[in-house]
């Protein structure tokens, strides 16, 4: 039997520990080693077959160029969706007030994932809360 084996090495990016994973791709599937927690196996499988990422950016609130609300996705999306989603987010001009966790775009580009605010913005510019 001549089994085809390819080995990938990659750092898990699910948390800052960054376990170094070794993934053997055999005819029978994937064999993952080096993870310090069970999430590593899922990550490695996903990373080799269909990598996913979250993304973060910030957009100005309506009527202001300098008051920004930072946003992220409610869950990770396939990596190739990053730039199409960024283009959608760029059109956003949310109206203040915005609260942390508020959905700004639901189901962005049909990914099943929402664009959500990651900070709270008051209804008026107040010296207490703005940077």
């Amino acid at each position, binding site marked *: 039997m001549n089994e085809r084996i390819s080995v990938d090495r990659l750092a898990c990016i699910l948390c800052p520990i960054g376990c170094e994973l070794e993934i053997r791709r055999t005819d029978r599937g994937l064999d993952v080693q080096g993870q310090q927690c069970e999430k590593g196996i899922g990550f490695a499988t996903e990373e080799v077959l269909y990598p996913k990422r979250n993304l973060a950016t*910030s957009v100005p609130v309506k009527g202001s160029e*300098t008051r920004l609300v930072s946003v992220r996705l409610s869950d990770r999306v396939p990596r190739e969706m990053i730039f199409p989603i960024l283009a959608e987010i760029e059109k956003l001009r949310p109206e203040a007030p915005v609260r942390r966790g508020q959905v700004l775009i639901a189901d962005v580009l049909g990914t099943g994932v929402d664009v959500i605010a990651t*900070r709270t913005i008051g209804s008026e510019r107040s010296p207490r809360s703005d940077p």
Partner: protein
Amino acid sequence: MKDDIFPLYDVVVIGGGPAGLAAALGARRAGAGDVLILERERRLGGILNQCIHDGFGLFLYNETITGPEYAERLAADVDREGIRAETGAMVLDLTAGRLLRVNSRSGYRLLRAKSVVLAMGCRERTRDMIEIPGTRPAGIFTAGSAQNLVNLQNIRIGNEAVILGSGDIGLIMARRLTFEGMAVKGVFELLPWTSGLERNVRQCLLDFGIPLELSSTVVEVRGRDRVSGVVVARVDEALRPVPGSEREVKCDTLLLSVGLIPENELSKRAGVELSPLTGGAVVDETFMTSVPGIFSCGNVLQIHDVADFASHEGFAAGAFAARFARGELPAGDKVRLCPGRNVRYCLPQTARTGTAGLDLSFRVTRPLRSCRVTAVGRNSGKTYFGKKYGRLLPSELQRVSIRPAIEEDLEVACHE
């Protein structure tokens, strides 16, 4: 002038970032009554506010959130506990007697504290500190200041960037600038290894095909009014540029991500002893500095790669500060914890004899594989701690717990 006319707090925390907010919570939960946070910015959260990327909170909240979310949650906890947090309040001076001079929204005032927790964070190293020759045009930013301009002020900082140094903020900014439509021409790192976390190399550089060149540096900045390019060169083992390896990379922006320095100006004013290895205070097992009643935690104590760990340190330091404020002074002789082979530093630097279950953090000097970390008694040769690691990187701050009661000076070493 007699000091006792000024208001006296149990615990005053200087700095309202991930460490300071946690320190205030730690102090309150350990029973401190009057806890005050002094934050010079107009918002609590410190550097978290500009760190809009995700990856925070995994240890504290058991989920991955962004910096602003982490800050808001921690600040909400502080609020819920009824802790007073004063923003726009800058501490101008701190004495060894724990008298603070503060410039606040309501004007200049003085106050006293039974305990002070230092949580001022850190600063970035600048071009001056690494001495890059060349012209002095516009377009050179530290990675963190670029992060502030882009993420908080909506300013486009340029079109084509080169990043010097592979610190985490530089890697994060490589991705951020790519998102903003800038071309990132490359990341150049002096050392033969990256100084940022593996996950950031992968998701910030590899994902976008941004080249990473190790053992290389910027040897010249070009451009008159604005940066027009930088000259990069390979370096040899002694980190000296290799003649003949120079090449120009055209760019209009240079980002520096070349290290962080604990911001200890106030600590120095109070006479706190600093460690040349960490740039932060020398502390004991209670995070107390050489000045009684002054504690230190977070990036002002040692540079962390994860905000959660800065908070973890804050919780502990705050709790010890609360005890000190109640007059519970730790007793016992002090022993020293010293870095040995392949260990750049370990912290705390001292501990009282009889301390058991000590949380020790350390960094290694270079990447190590299949190694064993030990803490060995200098007198008895007894092994207090031993653990095997598959891999250790200088970019990763390690934390371990030394279970047995410590009775002598220890040397922390890493053997390959």
